[in-house]
């Protein structure tokens, strides 16, 4: 199928740190090897992988998919229906809906991936620290996490973004993207913290960790070489699905007018701009919405495929 090298990179990226502590290079099979064997037999994995490659290409080189300028507006063509000339029709300002949908991929994927990375770093770090050092540090981190979990997602984002970047303000392109990424990570880290924390607590009392400690390994070495690789599997699964849900969340916030906004090109903004023209120009809204849903679907499917392959309970 499409791009086997990309997959191997994906698996390998996770494979490197895991292989060393288990120390079974060669003969025996590692978790990641097993996972890969299961994954490559699953149709859903290959479908989502093809879709992922398409979306990544779209984000990296939008001009491969369209030769039109997403900013070019002809007001005379405002809200024209799809035709052979413009497959998805024109939007309110007379811009090509297809071109804007293609260029929107970059923003959504950047926000989704960076926000997930930030969540993983913040949540993973606090989780490992809480689990490894325990006592008062654990208590503090867990309580603070609970406070942030007490804020439902949309609500928390509304409260923060509403003040930092209110609906009528006009922050720069990079600023608003950074703010949205930080807000998503700030509200999402406690779940990851819990995942990492429980994984590390489980691994902490294993013999090999005791052995490493007896051999005089310091906390840093134990955490990075022995404990982190063990929490990698659940974190990987969770974060793949999270990329998808963050992309959806970004669109939701843009819809509310407090997330990204023009001149950024994003699916959420396109949907928000045309929500009130749903009677006369449904195409201007439903094509970006379709791209958005497909992109979320890609990550959800990929995450589920990886989870099914990693979870020994379902084998």
């Amino acid at each position, binding site marked *: 199928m499409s791009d086997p090298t990309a997959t191997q990179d994906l698996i390998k990226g996770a494979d490197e740190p895991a292989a060393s502590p288990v120390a079974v290079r060669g003969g025996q099979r590692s978790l990641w090897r097993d996972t890969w064997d299961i994954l490559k037999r699953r149709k859903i994995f290959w479908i989502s992988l093809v879709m992922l490659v398409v979306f990544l290409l779209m984000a990296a080189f939008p001009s491969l998919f369209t030769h039109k300028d997403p900013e070019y507006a002809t007001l005379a063509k405002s809200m024209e229906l799809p035709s052979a000339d413009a497959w998805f029709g024109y939007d309110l300002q007379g811009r090509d809906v297809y071109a804007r949908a293609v260029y929107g991929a970059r923003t959504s994927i950047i926000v989704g991936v960076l926000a997930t990375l930030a969540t993983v770093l913040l949540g993973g770090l606090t989780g490992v620290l809480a689990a490894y050092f325990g006592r008062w540090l654990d208590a503090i981190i867990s*309580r*603070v996490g*609970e*406070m*942030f979990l*007490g*804020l*439902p*997602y*949309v*609500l928390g984002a*509304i*409260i*923060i973004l*509403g*003040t*930092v*970047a*209110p*609906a*009528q*303000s006009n922050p720069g392109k990079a600023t608003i993207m950074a703010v949205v990424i930080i807000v998503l990570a700030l509200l999402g880290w406690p779940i990851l913290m819990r995942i990492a924390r429980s994984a590390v607590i489980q691994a902490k009392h294993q013999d090999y960790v005791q052995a490493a400690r007896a051999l005089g390994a310091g906390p840093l070495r134990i955490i990075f070489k022995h404990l982190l690789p063990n929490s990698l599997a659940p974190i990987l699964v969770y974060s793949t699905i999270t990329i*998808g849900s963050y992309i*959806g969340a970004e*669109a*939701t916030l843009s*819809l*509310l*007018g*407090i997330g990204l906004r023009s001149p950024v090109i994003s699916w959420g903004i396109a*949907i928000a701009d045309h*929500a009130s023209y*749903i*009677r006369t120009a*449904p195409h201007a*809204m*439903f094509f970006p*919405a379709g791209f*958005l*849903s*497909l992109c*979320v*679907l890609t990550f*959800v*499917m990929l995450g*589920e495929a990886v989870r099914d392959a990693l979870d020994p309970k379902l084998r």
Partner: protein
Amino acid sequence: MGRYAIRRLLQLVPVVLGTTFIINYMVWQLPGDPFAGRCGQRPCPDSYVAAMRDQFGLDQPLLVQYWNFLKNLLTGNLGVNFNGVSVASELGDAWPITIRLALMAVLFEAVIGIGAGVLSGLKRGGFIDNVVTISTLFLLSLPIFVTGYLLQWLLGVQLGVITPTVTDEATVPELIVPALVLASLNMAFTARLTRTSIVENLRADYVRTAVAKGLSNRRVVAIHLLRNSLIPVLTFLGTEVGSLMSGAIITEGIFNIHGIGGLLWRAILDQDYTVVVPVATLLVLVYLLANLLVDLLYGVLDPRIRYE
């Protein structure tokens, strides 16, 4: 049980304090002008900003401000909005509608989600199972507003089956489609959770015993299997009641329902923070209390769980 309830309640106190503090801090203290929306498109005159800062006590120490906020909240003094209407009375009008919407959504989640989950779990790998797995996958990846606009356009604008927006009364028939939209995501989660739970319990010893005793299939499923499998599902539904309230922001905005969510949606667009803060705080409290109730209910539903 009693002691556990008290301990959980006490544990809730710092979380409630922390969360409300975060809300309060973020709205009033972060850089950005909380009164920016009050003067329309032009910046507010300095004298006005000074008067407002004074009225909201923004120049007092942080903890004093927070204390006043708590005091106002506990005495039900929620202040007035931009137009001078008391927030408490607006909330009073909006609550019943949102509760009706949320209850209908939970009902849909329970009936459709559990039904689909049981059917697919009992015949793993069968036709229904595949249909449920694929359709829940799609439901999970459709953001709630996409489902909302899609149904509004399809059923309201194209087919004319429903009115695209809901009237002020928000009667039960009018709320059916919005409730389905609100429930869509959790419906998929419920179906999957039920399926997993059924599949796990099907292998359990007590099911084998029940079958070996010669009980009819229907009795094994309805009395033995379902009662045990539905415990995690019920707790999930309970926890989600709280988050449905905030999910209602989007749904109520789309269908123009005058509930809590719609109130919040309009307040955000108008940048009316005097409304956003108390409403958001109340929603958070509902969410936390729902979680607490579910935790306590867990022990009642599942006698294997002991609180020590």
